[in-house]
């Protein structure tokens, strides 16, 4: 699960979290007792549809300010590690 969530954990963390998560999952699983097929699901408190704002151009956030807060940048772009050739 931690691999799927892209979080490196130490062996000690895995031991502790696995125990805690078992207890939590057992407790929250009770929701299935009352979630019968006739009950519709709710994803959002106040359903809204087709929300658009006026099609007016506005100035974007300043690029240099965005890049200044990045871990690394070059030539006006984010500088990121190698993204291809992964095993995972």
């Amino acid at each position: 699960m931690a691999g799927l969530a892209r979080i490196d954990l130490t062996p000690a963390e895995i031991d502790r979290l696995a125990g805690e998560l078992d207890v939590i999952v057992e407790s929250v699983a009770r929701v299935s007792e009352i979630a019968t097929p006739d009950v519709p699901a709710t994803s959002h408190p106040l359903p809204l549809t087709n929300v658009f704002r006026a099609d007016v151009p506005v100035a974007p956030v300043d690029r240099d300010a965005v890049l200044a807060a990045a871990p690394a940048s070059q030539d006006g772009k984010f500088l990121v590690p190698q993204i291809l050739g992964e095993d995972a």
Partner: protein
Amino acid sequence: MSDLTRISAATLAEKLSAGEVSSVEATQAHLDRITAVDGAVHAFLHVSADEALATAADVDQRRAAGEDLHALAGVPIAVKDVVVTKGLPTTAGSKILEGWVPPYDATLVERIKAAGLPILGKTNMDEFAMGSSTEHSAYGNTHNPWDLTRIPGGSGGGSAAAVAAYEAPLAIGTDTGGSIRQPGAVTGTVGVKPTYGSVSRYGLIAMASSLDQAGPVTRTVLDSALLHELIGGHDPLDSTSIAEPLPGLVAAARQGATGDLTGVRVGVIRELQGEGYQAGVLARFQESLAILEAAGATIVEVSCPHFEYALGAYYLIMPSEASSNLAKFDGMRFGLRVVPEDNPTAERVMSATRGQGFGDEVKRRIILGTYALSAGYYDAYYGSAQKVRTLIQRDFDAAFAQADVLVSPTAPTTAFKLGEKLDDPLAMYLNDVATIPANLAGVPGLSLPNGLSDDGLPVGFQVLAPAKADDRLYRVGAALEALLEKNWGGPLLSQAPELEVAR
């Protein structure tokens, strides 16, 4: 000048507009108070003294020039560190964002700046707003001003403690499962979670997008109404923002303060009392009901049978949404980047960065959410939780057919000791049992102090209203506040022990 920190925001605003005091004086008084007590309280992660004083001086100048200013212009405010502020560091209490300075303002911050409120600084919180005690902050916990060995509540413990310790008259909080109301309850202050969509979420670092809502943290109900009217209302940058005007919140608070609740039906939620609630909390609750009845309200009992499943549904929906929202912390565009030694591909950089940058509770919730959303478990966990959400909304609909507002204790207990529940996530989660249903249904809730428990610590009283009827919170809240303060002979906070002042 120290008394400028003890008065309400409404009173300070009157003094400012009457020219009795300047905003520079008021802002400096609060900065001095922060210097004097925040070493012990640790409500602030960052204090922006220069920026605050510059705003104050500008407001004073504009006022002197006869400009028409907002009613709260010049009244200082503190902002929870989960809200982005252009030019001021924003960490959300996490090491993964240490040193990040946002290039833009949240909509609510834009409104605060446009109205001329000096921003004193950013307040401490549980990392990414995940917790009920601020003990999950990566920068050390905040202390409860009533007893420095106790928790200030969470996640917005910094904002609540700042207001309770007279470091700020106003603060901004965010509430996903109770993070405004529970800290309010345990620090003897007022906090409001508005209707979902009442205040823009643009510029909030999201935990659970269908539950998060920003709102006011203050010492009085009227101050909350004033701040809610300032930050609320439609924002085209938040597609879940309600495209209608707010109801009259300040007017409702002023009406309530007369103490007359004739014709108001108050519903007591049967499932949010009894087992698990401290005796002193229940005793104050019953006394408050008697006060409301004496003020002309009709008390009815209502049942919300599915509320017992709310905590379970919440701890599936919230982590699921959080696991998705926090995927953006990948070490590429902002914040921390940890590069592992061999073969540092983007995916390995992301895992190393998150392993080092996130704290325990954030890791727990992301992994729980990843599990709840994974193939084969989705229907049983996330799908079931969404159905419970429907059932809880139906409980609210039925209850609001019988009552104009619903009431309960805000939190089952008073402030517990720092460290007491840190190693027991489930015990920590139970603090939010009475506040979570409102987030699941999107309805508004207010907490106000209604007395001290047997242990001498403050107790909170929660008022809930139907969606978009936030004005009812302020009417009932202001009435109870006025009648309680008449009995006490002043605000509850005046009974708090004085903090030692550092020099």
